[in-house]
Each structure stands twice: as C-alpha cells, then as structure tokens.
C-alpha cells in the first residue's frame, strides 16, 4: 500500500504539468458540452421558469407529450420534410461537384494557372452565409439583378429565383455547390497526389488515353476518400446547420425553406416553447447519431474502412 502510494506520487511528480495543461480544456468540455446535456430532460418535462431541471414536473403521456405534440405539429413535419429533402438534394448536387473539379484540375499541366484557379475556387468558402445571401439578393433580384438583366436582354421574362418555392430550392442548392465545391476539392486533390505516378506511366505504355486513366486509375485511387466522405454526408442527412438556411430563407418561401434548426430557433428561443423544441432537437440528434453509426457499419460491411 505504502509502495503504491509512493509510485503514484512519483508518477504525478513526473506528469503533473500535462494534467495541468489538460485541466482547462476538460473543464471547458464539461461545462459547455456536457453540462447542457442535463437540460435535455426538459424534453420530457413541463418547463418552469425559476425551477431546476430536476424539480420540473414530468410531462403527460409518460413524459412523451412533447414528442407526440411535435409529430402532430404541421410546421414540424414540414421542417422535417424540408431538412431531409434539402440535404438529399445537397448530396446529389454537392457531393460529385468537388470530385469532378479535382479531376479537371488534375489534368491542368500549367502550375501557376492551376494554383490561381484553386485560389479563386476557394474564395466562396471564406464568405459568410449572410454575405452570400446578400450576393444572391443582388444577383437574382427580379429585375435589377445581374442574372435577370441578362435574361431580360435575351428577350425572356424574369425568373423568380428567390421568390417562388421551386426556384428558391434550386438557387439554395446551387449556391451551396458554389460555396463548397472548391474547398471540398482540396481533400480529393491530396488523395490524387498520393497515387503512384508509375501507374499512369504503365497505363500510358499500354496505350490508355486521358479518360481511360481517369476512370481506371484516378477514380479507384481516390475511392476510399470518396466512401469516407459519402458516409459522413449520409450520416448527416437529418443534420441542419443554422447559418445557411436562416440567411437564405425569406417569408415568401418558408413552406420549402424552414428546416429543423430554424424551426427550433423560432419556436424555442423566440417563441419560448422550450420543452417542444428541446424534444425536436433531441429527436434530431438521436436520429443523426443512429444514421452515422449505421452508415459507418454499412461501409465496413462493404469492405471499406469506416471513419473510426
């Protein structure tokens, strides 16, 4: 016993500095990431101001009242539907774009030109969604926007890019592609750079052309990267950032633009329905986690490496 105590003393004497360094980050995680988890209980309780979470009375229907209420709430169902459909469209349009861009860049033999194109393509990633929505207002305005000015000059009628629901969805998705394709290509370019040049040389000797090499060497070479990123995207199918939808939406298109994160903000922080919106948030987090675990498991079954 004496010896054991002595040993941990020696151990601490050696390592205390490392623990001291970790102290602040761990306190941060406990306070800002773990302690709010106790508030999740509100989803199962009747929210009362000036009462601790543990004292609040349980909600009716075995605490499930607010989950049932959410699923009977038309606005919630609409937000859920929009979240899923916008994410699916994002995946369909946004996932291949950086891969295609990386393949195109890979065929450029002029180094300086390639680097300039990259710099320009990374630019949209550094713009905030407030700024991008401002750009959209300027570019797509019904008569004074650049795009509609061009369309009008060609003799066609203005397109309501931001005011009609269907057009808004298309604008939203394409703006997302515009914002992320360049940044997303970085990871694929790195993967392409890791492919052995000997493979290309051997293929050239065998008489393979540019597109054959792309199809039979480059694409298989970056397949693991593609799969991992696809899993992460699929796992996030019910996730919804806040900045992008909130900045892009406008009153005319709410029917297609309201997503779960903005629903929670409007009904919770603005509308003070804390129990209902905590229930919605919890539902979203749990489903997200489930999808992530599922898609990771699936990719391992298919013989690819998972994300952990």
């Amino acid at each position, binding site marked *: 016993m004496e010896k054991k105590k002595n040993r941990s003393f020696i151990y601490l004497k050696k390592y205390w500095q490392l623990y001291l360094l970790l102290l602040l980050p761990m306190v941060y995680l406990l306070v800002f990431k773990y302690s709010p988890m106790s508030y999740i209980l509100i989803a199962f309780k009747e929210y009362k101001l000036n009462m601790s979470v543990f004292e609040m009375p349980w909600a009716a229907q075995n605490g499930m009242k607010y989950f049932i209420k959410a699923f009977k709430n038309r606005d919630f169902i609409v937000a859920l539907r929009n979240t899923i459909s916008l994410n699916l469209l994002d995946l369909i349009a946004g996932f291949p774009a950086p891969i295609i861009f990386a393949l*195109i860049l890979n065929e450029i033999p002029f180094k300086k030109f390639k680097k300039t194109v990259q710099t320009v393509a990374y630019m949209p990633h550094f713009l905030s969604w407030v700024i991008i929505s401002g750009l959209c207002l300027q570019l797509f305005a019904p008569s004074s926007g650049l795009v509609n000015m061009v369309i009008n000059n060609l003799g066609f009628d203005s397109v309501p890019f931001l005011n009609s629901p269907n057009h808004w969805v298309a604008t939203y998705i394409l703006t997302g592609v515009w914002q992320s394709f360049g940044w997303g290509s970085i990871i694929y370019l790195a993967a392409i750079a890791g492919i052995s040049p000997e493979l290309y040389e051997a293929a050239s000797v065998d008489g393979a052309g540019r597109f054959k090499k792309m199809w039979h060497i480059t694409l298989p070479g970056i397949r693991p990267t593609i799969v991992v990123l696809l899993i992460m995207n699929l796992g996030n199918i019910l996730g919804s950032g806040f900045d992008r939808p909130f900045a892009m939406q406008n009153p005319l298109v709410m029917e297609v633009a309201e997503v779960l994160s903005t629903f929670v903000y409007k009904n919770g922080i603005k509308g003070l329905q804390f129990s209902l919106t905590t229930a919605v948030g919890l539902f979203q987090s749990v489903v997200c986690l489930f999808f992530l675990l599922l898609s990771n498991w699936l990719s391992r079954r298919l013989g690819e490496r998972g994300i952990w």
Partner: protein
Amino acid sequence: MNVKGKSTQMGDWIFVILCVFVGLICVIPMINLLARSLSSSEYLVKHSVYLIPKGLNFEAYTTVLKDSKNIRAFVWTVFLTVVCTLVSLTMTAICAYPLIFQDLKFRNTFNILITITMFFNAGTIPNYLLMKQLNLLNSPLVLIVPACLSVYNMIIMRSFFYGIPESLRESAQIDGASYFTILLNIYLPLSKPVFATLALFYAVGRWNGYSDALMYITNKDYYPLQMLLYNILNNINNVEVAAQEGFSTPGLAESLKAAVVMFSTVPILLIYPWLQKYFIAGVTLGAVKE
C-alpha cells in the same frame, strides 16, 4: 509544361477552358457587387450596371464609412476575432499537446470524452439555457468562450504534433527539460504551419459567425459585423435609418448594400490567398485517420 507531345496539349486546353469557366462563376458575383457599389444610382435604377461601374463614384462607401455604427461594429469585430483566435489557439494547443504522450494515464478517457462531443451535441435550446444560467446572455463573453475550442481543430493539431519526431522531445527530456519547456521551445516553433492554418479557421469562423450573436445577444452594441449586415440586408430596423442614410432612394439603397457587403468581406479576401499553402495542409491533416 507538359512534355507529352502535341496531341496531349490539345486536350489540355479543353480543361483549361473549363477551369476558366469555373473561375469566372466564382468571381463574377463579387465583380458585379463591386461594380454596383461604385456606380451612381441613376444607372442602377436603369438596370444597366453589369461588371463595370457606371457613373463611378464613392458615395456609397463614404456613406458607409461616415456611419459611426458601421465603424464601431468593424473595430469590435476585429477585436473579437483577434481575441477569439488567440484564446482558441491556446486552448487547442494545451488540449492537443498532453494527448500525444502515449504513457499518460487516463489518456484514453480524455480521448473518449473529447470524441463523444463530436457525435452528440446537447442541442440549441439546452445550450441557450446554459448561457442563461451562466449569466452569459447579452455578455460579450458569450461570443468568445462557448466556441473557444473546436474538437476538429484540436484533432488537426494533434495529428501535426504526432508528426514531430519523438526523439526530439526524448533528447530534451534527457537534458532535463520539463513538459512546459518542451511545448514552448520545441513544439510551438516547429508547429508554425498548423498554427497559421488553425488561426485562419478560427478567425474566419468568428468573422463570419452570426448565429451566436443572433441567439444570445440583444444589446446592439455587441453586435458583430455580420449581424449588422444581416439586419441591413433584410431591411430590419431600417425605418429610422432610411431617412438619414438614403435607404429610401432605391438606387442608392442598392449601392449602399453592395458597399456594406464589400466592406465586411474585403479583410478576409485579402488574407486567405496568402495562407493557401497552410490551409491545404490543414484540411489534409484533418482527414488523416489516427
């Protein structure tokens, strides 16, 4: 230059043209915006401004710069961004560094504690209620502290630290250097690239972020630039502003909005190209599986 012969060169040009097209799509919105901000309102009302300013004038910019509210928000956001970046970098480093020592007891516990937060977040409302309980609502601290450590960025830094040869710190330890000394004198100087990358990530995140201000702050004095911009673009609370700032004249309102957007974007556009080498390395490091 490629030395594969003429037939390959021909094909290359198709890709060059594709790239030029993609590049134009990226920059044309910004060029259009710049042209609008510099054009006079009569041309804007006539819808004749495309990519080149017409009736060149700086009225929109002088109006934006004359308004002390804009300048205030700009200075405040610069200050916030610098403080956030420094605090976050410190937090990231002191979290990543101890975790590279394989023989540290409870290292796995710490790692698990960190990883869980990546997959499960308490949610918007619980976070809001926490800020309320900590009395952080409407405090400028709420824009700094809650986001001062990104686990993703910590993992990037840790991967970088793993890449520094162990022999370096072992020989320093033999010479009697403490863990603090090793961090300050070996790891920090060797990690400039990853610090540059993460500084950019944190700075851009703070500069561009507005949702925390939207949710936690009602005192307009603490609004960061993006929040102000959001209100201007969406014509919120412009009723009293309209008269003084010329928002009522349609043409000038357009060029003013364009000028405000340029005003809040230019700082980042000036910085990011110089850090390209670093952030590419950073993104790639983040993708490396441990």
